[in-house]
């Protein structure tokens, strides 16, 4: 089967060369000791850090896609989401649609008013779920999740896991999920690869 996301010979100062193939709808977990470069790998795929080698989305080379378009389709969600304006709605991507946002709010267990909430008063669980939500509003085809549940309690963790799973099932998107947590590994399922000394080992 053809890869949705294909990484070939990806190399940065600390990583690679490494290859990776994500099938449509697939969730692949990345593990590895801290400092093994898991975040660097996601950042390189999202084109936030320079890297050599080929990265293709549904056969299309990254170099042929404008960077903003690439990052909307291959969405990087960091462990700690960044906020820069007073209210939630100001952080949603350009061209977001109300119905879509409301539908997603429900699926991450947040009320419709959440769009008007002040950032200052968000809990870390709300921040992470809203951070995922705003990335999903771009309808990404690949999600790069960098320990999205690192600061969350179990309840919020499971909400986020369910939201990602249902997005993948609906959209056929694939996800790379960096996780530390062995219990989470079992819950999420799917293929698990380890990043060791800059290389991926199955």
């Amino acid at each position, binding site marked *: 089967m053809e890869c949705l996301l294909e990484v070939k010979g990806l190399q940065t100062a600390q990583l690679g060369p490494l290859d990776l193939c994500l099938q449509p709808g697939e969730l692949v977990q990345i593990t590895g000791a801290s400092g093994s470069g898991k975040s660097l790998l996601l950042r390189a795929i999202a084109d936030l850090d320079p890297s050599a080698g080929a990265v293709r989305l549904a056969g299309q080379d990254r170099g042929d896609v404008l960077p903003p378009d690439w*990052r909307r389709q291959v969405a990087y969600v960091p462990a700690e989401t960044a906020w*820069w304006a007073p209210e939630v709605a100001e*952080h949603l991507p350009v061209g977001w649609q109300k119905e879509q946002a409301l539908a997603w709010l429900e699926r991450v267990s947040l009320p419709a008013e959440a769009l008007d909430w002040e950032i200052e008063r968000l809990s870390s669980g709300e921040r992470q779920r809203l951070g995922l939500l705003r990335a999903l509003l771009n309808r990404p085809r690949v999600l790069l999740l960098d320990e999205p549940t690192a600061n969350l309690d179990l309840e919020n963790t499971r909400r986020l896991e369910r939201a990602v799973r249902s997005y993948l099932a609906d959209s056929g998107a694939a996800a790379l999920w960096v996780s530390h947590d062995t219990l989470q590994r079992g819950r999420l399922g799917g293929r698990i690869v380890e990043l060791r000394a800059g290389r991926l080992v199955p």
Partner: protein
Amino acid sequence: MTVISLSAWDLAAASLLVIGLAGVTLWARLGVGRSLLIAAVRTVLQLLLVGLVLQALFDHARLGLVALMALVMVAIAGYEVMARQERRFAGVWGYGIGAVTMFVSAFVVTVLALTTMIGPTPWWEPQYAIPLLGMLLGNTMTGIALGLDRLTQTVWRERRIIEGRLALGENWISATATMRREAARSGLMPTINAMAAAGVVSLPGMMTGQILAGVPPVEAVKYQILIMFLISAGTGFGALGAVWLASKRLFDERSRLRLDRLRPGRRG
């Protein structure tokens, strides 16, 4: 009217004030006593040197010499801008951004003013050209250095926000819009404040100098107004240009934030 000539003793008396200040800062452990004294010594040496150079230039007024002097001044101002950055660009950019924008703003504005407004003969008459360029450089240097410093500091501090916005599909221009605006504003503020306060709070240096030298106040005021306008235009365009160039340099062709292009500068 003649100017009262200052003796070496007069200057020595003034220097006691600076030494006293250095003593106090030392006592208060502000950690600037040393740089204060070095700066004071530099003032004396540099000004004496420039006095001699100017005298020589006035005695042998030639376009080539004036141009050489002007280029040296721009080159040194470019270095000063770089030295004032807490984080500077690696390689030639660290020097280049300041020097190029200063050349475009201060140098071009000076030539424009000489040829179209003041109109001495020849237009590069050193008595006009050199002080004018000096005043413009002194002010644009501050504006450009402030603007650049603010930009690199904010971008450094808010790198997570910038990358968060890039990751959501914004380009670097919109992801840094507020930071660039803020940086340009901080470069322009000193000039705007100086214009707003001119004559009310402070008597500008050049006007004061002309009045001390016996020029009728109204003539001195006209010159001061001209200079203020030139300074604000030079500083404004210089700061805008420098902030634009620097923010462009902070991102590469794939719109990636490249903080690796910055090096720690002053104060580590």
